């Protein structure tokens, strides 16, 4: 991606390529143990066990979804009771128009629970992974485009407190990186 800002000299970080998922996995363990914080691995598919290798915990997206689900159930119940019992009681099929109408309200309650949980999943996911974001320094790297095809890449940002221009590069080479590319902002 040709971007005029790529000509600036401020370093964003290093992109290092590894040979396979297995190599990247072990490299990630070493970077984790070296105490880096602002780094990531970029792979064409989610690599099983990588969260552990990177020292990341469980995703808490599920908590956001639970919130969405509860909102959905309550919305549906309030909507149905308010319109069916208070506002406009329709007497059909000899069904009651009071608290005991609840069995008839289950299907819509269920559907709205699912619907709002799904909305919460999407909104929660995008807020956690900070997307959409169409512009990112990594898109300046020609090597980076391989990560959506068959590249196994490790990226260390220059903002990391442990980052040292030369030493980090040496470390990457030491843990088995093939190509190492500097990426500028």
């Amino acid at each position, binding site marked *: 991606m040709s971007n005029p800002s790529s000509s600036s000299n401020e370093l964003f970080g290093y992109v290092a390529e590894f040979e*396979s*998922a*297995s190599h*990247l*996995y072990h490299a*990630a363990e070493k970077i984790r143990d070296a105490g880096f914080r602002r780094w*990531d*691995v*970029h*792979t*064409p*598919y*989610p*690599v*099983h*066990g*990588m*969260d552990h290798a990177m020292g*990341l915990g469980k*995703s808490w*997206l*599920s908590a956001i*979804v639970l919130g969405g689900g509860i909102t959905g159930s309550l919305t549906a119940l309030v909507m149905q009771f308010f*319109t*069916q019992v208070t506002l*406009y009681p*329709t007497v*059909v*099929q000899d*069904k009651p128009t009071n608290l005991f109408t609840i069995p008839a*309200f289950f*299907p*819509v309650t*269920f*559907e*709205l629970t*699912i*619907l709002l*949980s*799904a*909305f919460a*999943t*999407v909104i929660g*996911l*995008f807020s*956690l*992974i900070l*997307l*959409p*974001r*169409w*512009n990112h320094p*990594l898109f300046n790297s020609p090597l*980076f*485009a391989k*990560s*959506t*095809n*068959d590249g196994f890449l490790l*990226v260390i940002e220059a903002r990391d407190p442990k980052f040292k221009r030369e030493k980090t590069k040496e470390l990457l080479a030491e843990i088995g990186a093939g190509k190492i590319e500097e990426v500028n902002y």
Partner: protein
Amino acid sequence: MANLSKANAAVHPSEAEGVAREPLVLNHRSLGWITDRICGIVENRQPLIWWVLFVPSVCGFLCLLFSLVYLVSTGVGVWGMNHPVAWGWDIVNFVFWIGIGHAGTLISAILFLTRQKWRTSVNRASEAMTLIAVMCAGIFPGFHVGRFWMVWFLAPIPNSNGIWQNFKSPLLWDVFAVSTYFTVSVIFWYIGLIPDLATLRDRGKGLAKKLYGFFALGWRGGNRQWRHYEMAYLILAALSTPLVLSVHSVVSFDFATSVVPGWHTTIFPPYFVAGAIFGGFAMVLTLMLPVRKLYGLEDLITAKHIDNMAKIILLTGTIVGYAYIMELFISYYSANAFETDAFHMRILSGPYTWAYYAMFFCNVIAPQVFWFKWSRHNLWMVFIVVNFVNFGMWFERFVIIPTSLARDFLPGQWGYYSASWVEKLLFGGSFGMFMMLFLLFIRFLPVIAISEVKGVLPDSDPHYPDWKRLKEKRRVAAK
């Protein structure tokens, strides 16, 4: 113990002797090959046959538009329905299309939760099929209400008449179920597409790069994104699983909660769900067998995949057969004269017995051939049988809906229903729309979930021991 762990280290569990499974991707294909092959379908010119299918599909779609304009401008009287059969082809087609959608969700959600890795080769196309089928389904009840422009009355919106919807009615449940199903399916499908759109973005040039890039939302495939992404995918699968079961259950409530003999049965929800999955898998195979052949995807959608789907068709077809027979038994065992009569007329003396036997043969007898392995591996055989199923599942809905209405309680109310040309054109047109949208999907989006297929290769496991040997095998295979 030491020996044992050494033996384990040398051979990956998936390849160990005695437990080795057929690989999901044949011929030792590499990650790059998978990307090239699947993206190639989108990036290269379409084969002639694509156009040969696309042009008639568009014509079919125009027929659909014409029949709808004719219907709205003239009135619902142009359909063949009248007293006593007020639900005809329109509702038959609605249930038919919505049922087809269910296989897509089964593959994408239920098989995901049950860790069936073979689903990755077929889930994208099946989910697309789901969305398109639900769109086709939505047309029918939408226009069945008579005044299409009043459809917004189905939504609980305050209006000047002070009237509110009847939330105790299964028809309103259906509105919520189907619209939720469509929305959640779109979300699930799109979330699954994001990494693949990023692949197309990184390969593309010019406008294609911009457009795919826009919809890829700037996906970078970092593990800090993947871990939330995987959780989102799992949650959506967990939400879709009960959802898909609920949708066809609610569709069956439209019938089961009424008092019409032939409809008023408790077996309907599971029976409808099994039938939906059965019919949907038949449609998946109908679409995927030609796609696989045309675009050279035999290494990704293998004989094993087709074998598995044929087995699911056999299982669900047999469940459906059980439900048919159980319906007959319950009508006899209930000792209810109307029930017994309804089924007597359905299978022996009524005007529609031919439809019952067409249904029974196509849905119960024809799939039994899948007990034999040779039939599951003979693609022509599979194609013929699944088309029997497509046909039979339409007949199932026809047998349930109009034939029950044509013979209800009083002989004075009996009638005979056959569809008018407008209904036939509309149904044919909905197939045109279905094919048109599916062909456009093949043209513009990856038919196979690229990132998911890559994740089921043997070396996708970071603990795969012998990746060097695998690399060598790949080099040989590439030659």
